[in-house]
């Protein structure tokens, strides 16, 4: 038993250090995406109303350079789109202009990746698929190892036979009870 505990301690310590970075990634992203209905966890977005002299309802080929000139756009344009008779859209990197050709009203939409959050969410949601799948699988394995070795680190009243055992049971009961409730109600 002493050797077993020693092995557990070694594994728990070393893999624990290894897991710190990824645990922070998954924890921060978990909080961010859990509240995705409260905020956009990946992008910051801006809306800015502008106004230009109305361009009128001419053919797209004629109005396009006029709109671009009146907006003073000098950055590279990805594409343009005549969304309707009086609606013209211009797409740039991280920017979109919605132009009303009749009134001259313009909405400039800006969007940019949130620092840190976009990156950790990309990892957490495995948007890039392989090879992150392998890293995430390995991390899951490490978490299992930490969970299985943790209870055997300490013996006595604070270990598995004492307070530790009660906390362990509580930690297992929470998902167990929730699982039973959701299965019977959904």
């Amino acid at each position: 038993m002493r050797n077993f505990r020693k092995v557990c301690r070694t594994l728990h310590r070393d893999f624990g250090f290894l897991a710190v970075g990824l645990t922070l990634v998954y924890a921060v992203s978990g909080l961010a995406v859990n509240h995705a209905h409260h905020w956009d966890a990946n992008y910051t977005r801006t809306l800015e109303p502008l106004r230009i002299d109305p361009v009128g309802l001419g053919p797209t080929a004629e109005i396009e350079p006029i709109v671009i000139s009146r907006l003073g756009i000098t950055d590279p344009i990805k594409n343009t789109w005549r969304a309707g008779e009086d609606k013209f859209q211009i797409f740039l990197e991280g920017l979109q202009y919605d132009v009303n050709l009749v009134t001259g009203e313009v909405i400039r939409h800006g969007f940019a990746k949130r620092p840190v959050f976009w990156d950790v969410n990309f990892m957490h949601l495995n948007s890039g698929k392989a090879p992150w799948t392998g890293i995430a699988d390995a991390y899951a394995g490490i978490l299992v190892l930490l969970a299985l070795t943790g209870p055997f680190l300490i013996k006595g009243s604070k270990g598995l036979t004492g307070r530790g055992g009660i906390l362990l049971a509580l930690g297992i009961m929470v998902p167990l009870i929730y699982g039973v409730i959701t299965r019977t109600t959904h």
Partner: protein
Amino acid sequence: MRKLTLLMILVLSLALASTALAGGKEKVYGKGISAPDTVRVSDVLADPDAYVGKTIRVTGMAVAVCEHRGCWVSLASDQEGETIRVKVKDGEIVFPPEIKGDLVTAEGVWTANQLTLEQTKAVCAAEARKQGEDYDPDDVETCMTTYQLSGTGAVVASK
């Protein structure tokens, strides 16, 4: 242990490097595309019922993307003003806003959804709000059918 640490660092570095190098001008979403021919968006919209239940491939510029979950993208038709919506399963494919203005080729099953009168009124009300127009629910007397591509995959060619 030192060897294990070095091995882990090597594996992580290789994995991350290959991820970084994987980015290119074309990005595949979901299952990508496999249908042999592309159907023009204007043809689909001209006779939408003819394509219901069929797996089709369409191409168009991305002009709108779901802001909440990236779960749909609107593609511009080859005819001005027309768009079709490609809806994907939440979380399975996530379209980022950066693809607006890029050329998207999407594949999926063309589906029709017959709305009830109440649903039709709700859609009309939302559209009127969006366009800043007046709306009277009593003007809506017939049920609407909405069409969309239930997307299984897409390829986005960045400009």
